[in-house]
């Protein structure tokens, strides 16, 4: 019998709603989460209203555990600090991040490689004269470096899932150790500062995770209506699909209700 907690059927939800729900399910109750603008905000807010009511959110402009009355449009938005525990600034929140307070990070990226290295800086040409200059790192590498787990949310396209990204903005499971540049494991590069790394990549087609031994990405679930072949055709490297568990669980009617009517009734990220 269908009830509020039944899964919605294909066509009853948008992709972005599925992504928000998949993100929300990565959050354990009581965790401290560092989130960026957009989908991460939807995911974290949804988690707080479902399985993780005691999760706290830090936004990098300086707010801690706000309880927004209206969805923020930016981490610098006044809406972030509505009923926050503390509102201060970057030095405070990044200090806490470096101190080890943050359990989980939600981040985005333009390109990713099989080890979870992410690029948000420059694509094509050379670094000094790139074909496409992006925003630069922002807090992406810092948050991903210093949280215990990171979840990336991205668009799935072959040109974005690359054998090697053009610039490593944010570190994955195998990285270059500078100033020498030798490839090492993330654990080696970080030494005592190692706390973990990317645990999931949630895309427009699938959810990926990383092998604990090799640090390589594998396919975990495909979104309803997407095939494994579809995913393989949109990844630019050899992808391990052998561990695919099946379909990404779709949103429930209750989750959709919350997203549409409580969390983003203005359609800021969900659209109309």
């Amino acid at each position, binding site marked *: 019998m269908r009830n509020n907690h039944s899964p919605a059927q294909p066509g009853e939800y948008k992709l972005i709603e599925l992504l928000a729900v998949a993100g929300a399910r990565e959050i354990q109750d009581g965790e401290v989460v560092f989130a960026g603008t*957009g989908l991460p905000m939807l995911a974290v807010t949804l988690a707080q209203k479902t399985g993780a009511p005691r999760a706290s959110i830090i936004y990098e*402009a*300086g*707010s801690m555990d706000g309880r927004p009355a*209206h969805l923020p*449009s*930016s*981490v*610098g*938005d*006044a*809406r972030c*600090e*509505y009923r926050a525990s503390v*509102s*201060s*600034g*970057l*030095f405070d929140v*990044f200090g806490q*991040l*470096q101190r080890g307070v943050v359990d989980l990070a939600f981040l985005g990226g333009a390109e990713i490689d099989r080890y979870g290295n992410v690029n948000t*800086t420059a694509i094509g*040409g050379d*670094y*000094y*004269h*790139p074909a*496409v*200059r992006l*925003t*630069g*790192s*922002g*807090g*992406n*590498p*810092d948050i991903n*470096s*210093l949280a215990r787990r990171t979840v990336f949310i991205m668009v799935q396209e072959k040109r974005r899932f690359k054998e090697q990204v053009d610039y*490593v*903005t944010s*570190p994955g499971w195998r*990285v*270059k*150790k*500078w*100033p020498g*540049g030798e490839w*090492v494991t*993330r654990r080696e*590069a*970080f*030494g*005592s*500062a190692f706390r973990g790394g990317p645990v999931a990549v949630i895309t427009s087609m699938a959810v990926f995770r990383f092998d604990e031994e090799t640090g390589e990405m594998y396919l975990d679930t495909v979104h309803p209506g997407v095939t494994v072949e579809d995913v393989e055709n949109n990844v630019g490297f050899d992808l391990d699909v052998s561990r695919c568990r099946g379909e990404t669980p779709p949103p429930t009617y209750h989750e959709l209700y919350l997203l549409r009517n409580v969390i983003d009734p*203005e*359609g800021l990220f969900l*659209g*109309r």
Partner: protein
Amino acid sequence: MAKKDKRMSIQEAVQLINDGDMITFSGFTIWRRPMAIVYEMVRQRKKNLHLIEVNSGTHGEVLIGAGCVKVLETCWIGHELYGKVGANAARKLKSGELLIEDYSHVHMIMRFAAGAMGVPYLPTRASLGTDILNPQYDVLGKYGLRDGSNPRIPRRKFEFLADPFFGEQGDIIHVPAARPNVCIAHVQQVGDEGTVRVFGQRYSDAEAIKAADKVIVVAEEIVPEEVIRQEPTANLIPHYLVDAVIEQPWGAHPTGCFGYYEVDGQFIRDFYNKTRTQEGFDAWAEEWILKVNSFDEYLYKIGFRRLDTLRANSSYKYSTRVKRGA
């Protein structure tokens, strides 16, 4: 040393800024940026500026598009939801007119904290394993600017050290202090002697102001020191660190100002769309900067109705009347 006679016009304040200066700003991405001063800097045709910022945003794009900037040290430039990259920075990077030195967000905030604390560097462990640390991507080094001739430009981009105290494994990164000539800040309130009060998130304002040698403060309101001093724990910056004080309501438009007004997303999106070419930028600047003589004239051009929609609700601290979303 406490300073006097701090009140001045925007025009006079901008004359405190010299060509070639290293400059930083208050705010965060598209929030509380000193736009009134930035427009006047374009009018006064400042040149060869070296911007150093935790992150940049719409204000940086205006200065870069206008050709005022030679170097940008930052972790980010864009307009958030209203323009996904810094199109002017990208264009001028490609053409070789602009150098961009990439650091991460933590690197930059620690650089400013070092400047504010009067030490030459701070240690961090953020962003190990990234190309930000790649020595081939030391832009100022590659262009010969790390030769010590400019005392504000550090001789190295990073240094790597080991921890001698706790036996911790792995590199510690030292990032050099940010030591700008000038910080230009837009804040909500300043006392008539210069005491600064910021409402809401303080971003990296304290570090930016304290790291700079000269401090220009534009406020929504100049208020009596005797009032602002009734609650000194709510104040951010003591008066003796401030050189210039200007009252300019809406002075951060189109960026947002907690408790006063919302981001004007439509205006920023229009800027982003129009200024993706140099011709487009020049036309936009002609219309919105060069053909208007003052910030008050700019506000008049935007119009009361639009501004009033952006005005913040006094409890929520943001506008509940602005249309957001789809």
